[in-house]
């Protein structure tokens, strides 16, 4: 048995030079310092994405897109298919945790200043991935074709329609027509299971490739300290030390997902009725809540301009700043560092406050 395994390994090694790969894996290290815990968030996000891929493919076995069939097929998954409720609930829970982890990862990278030279493009690809995850959340939300998802998509596609000139074409493109119909469902389905996954795969490979290329970033404070007293530098091997720790975290996460799905299974709601009034207290998913609440609070007119449009432009601006942050913050001084951290804190505080406000507001 052992000799067979070793002969297979040597056969493969002869062709693919696995020894080089092994050497590479052994060379890779992860810096060890008091912020090392934050290095786990990216891997956790990746793991949850993997869970999404697996459960998503499983859901595809029974899900049928189409206004007449979508709700019924999800109903079938929830009630007839063995463990269908579990698979769907894990998909929903994991989606929510994934968005949360992606945000947490973004802010940790921001506060540890890992986006600075030479990792600018790693940051940019990461922000794109976050936008993509929000796109996954939005497009996936319509698929069960229930009342909530119907109105969420209606409002969500109405928002970009407020942008002057390009707004209307965007709305038509997203909806596949004037209204939310079966055509919208087909589009969101295609987006959710083909287009977004394709882009996400590309970006994830790019993102991970760049992380591999540049190695792990060390926060400026620690780096300065290590520069001054080199014997304080601590590192652990990526393989197996870091990988095993990360695997442990993934294992716990999987258990947590299972527990959440079993204790709080996702509900199905009521089938979308295109002519029924919107139910009272309707809200988007929590990760869109801060934008939703802002748009609700903005007055209709500000200095003669449409309040809604101003709000959308402001969020667009924040997105653009987030995307281009490494190019905007090029100073390596501690004052610029404090300035960026302050702004990020402010925005994070705003997000949290608005989310809580939106959560409790009637």
């Amino acid at each position: 048995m052992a000799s067979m395994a070793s002969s297979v390994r040597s056969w493969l090694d002869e062709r693919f030079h696995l020894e080089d790969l092994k050497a590479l894996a052994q060379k890779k290290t992860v810096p060890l310092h008091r912020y090392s815990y934050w290095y786990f968030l990216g891997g956790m996000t990746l793991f949850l994405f993997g869970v999404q891929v697996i459960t998503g493919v499983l859901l595809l076995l029974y899900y049928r897109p189409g206004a007449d069939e979508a709700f019924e097929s999800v109903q079938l998954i929830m009630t007839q298919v063995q463990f269908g409720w579990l698979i769907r609930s894990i998909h929903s829970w994991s989606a929510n945790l994934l968005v949360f982890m992606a945000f947490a990862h973004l802010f940790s990278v921001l506060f540890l200043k890992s986006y600075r030279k030479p990792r600018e493009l790693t940051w940019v690809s990461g922000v794109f991935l976050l936008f993509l995850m929000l796109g996954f959340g939005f497009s996936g939300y319509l698929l069960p074709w229930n009342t909530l998802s119907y109105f969420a998509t209606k409002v969500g596609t109405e928002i970009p329609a407020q942008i002057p000139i390009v707004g209307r074409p965007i709305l038509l493109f997203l909806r596949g027509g004037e209204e939310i119909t079966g055509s919208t469902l087909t589009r969101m389905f295609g987006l959710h299971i083909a287009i977004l996954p394709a882009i996400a795969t590309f970006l994830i490979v790019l993102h991970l490739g760049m992380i591999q290329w540049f190695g792990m970033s060390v926060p400026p404070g620690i780096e300065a300290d290590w520069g001054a007293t080199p014997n304080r530098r601590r590192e652990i091997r990526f393989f197996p030390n870091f990988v095993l720790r990360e695997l442990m975290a993934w294992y716990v996460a999987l258990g947590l997902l299972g527990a959440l799905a079993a204790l709080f299974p996702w509900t199905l709601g009521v089938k979308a009725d295109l002519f029924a009034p919107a139910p009272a207290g309707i809200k988007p998913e929590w990760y869109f809540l801060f934008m939703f609440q802002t748009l609700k609070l903005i007055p209709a007119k500000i200095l003669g301009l449409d309040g809604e449009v101003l709000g959308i432009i402001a969020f667009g601006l924040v997105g653009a700043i987030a995307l281009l942050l490494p190019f905007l913050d090029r100073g390596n001084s501690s004052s610029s560092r404090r300035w960026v951290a302050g702004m990020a804190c402010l925005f994070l505080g705003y997000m949290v406050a608005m989310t809580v406000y939106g959560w409790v507001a009637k």
Partner: protein
Amino acid sequence: MHSASSATAAATERQGLARRRFVNLLLGTGLLASAASFLYPILRYLVPPKLPDLGSDAVLAAKVSEMKPNTAKTFRFGSRPGLLVETAPGEYHAMSATCTHLGCTVQYRSDLHEIWCACHNGMYDLNGRNVSGPPPRPLEVFDVQVRGEDIFVRRRQEA
């Protein structure tokens, strides 16, 4: 522990190894069990649920007025096709339209007065018996009841 402290260094090492093996065994079993508990729901999920056969044991196959002698009509029997034949003398025969060979849908040949499967040239007579070609078994035959204008087909009750 006190016995280990009194033992020789080699014995301590041996015991350490045994303890390590025990811990590894415990960990490995735990991991295997949890992997099985993750995989089991997925495997069960892959098995499609048994859905109730659409329709009952009896279906309305056709109206008397739409049938002509020496013709046939394919009708839905649950989720599968059935074949209703009116012979030249005006008798009704009903049977499953799924060929027993490889599952194609069979048809009535008015020129041969037989039931024919186009896929591999299988032949059945009007009582569903496989008379030539590859079909291994006869077609399932249904009972026909004419009630007024309606022709009902029902699955034969097993005696």
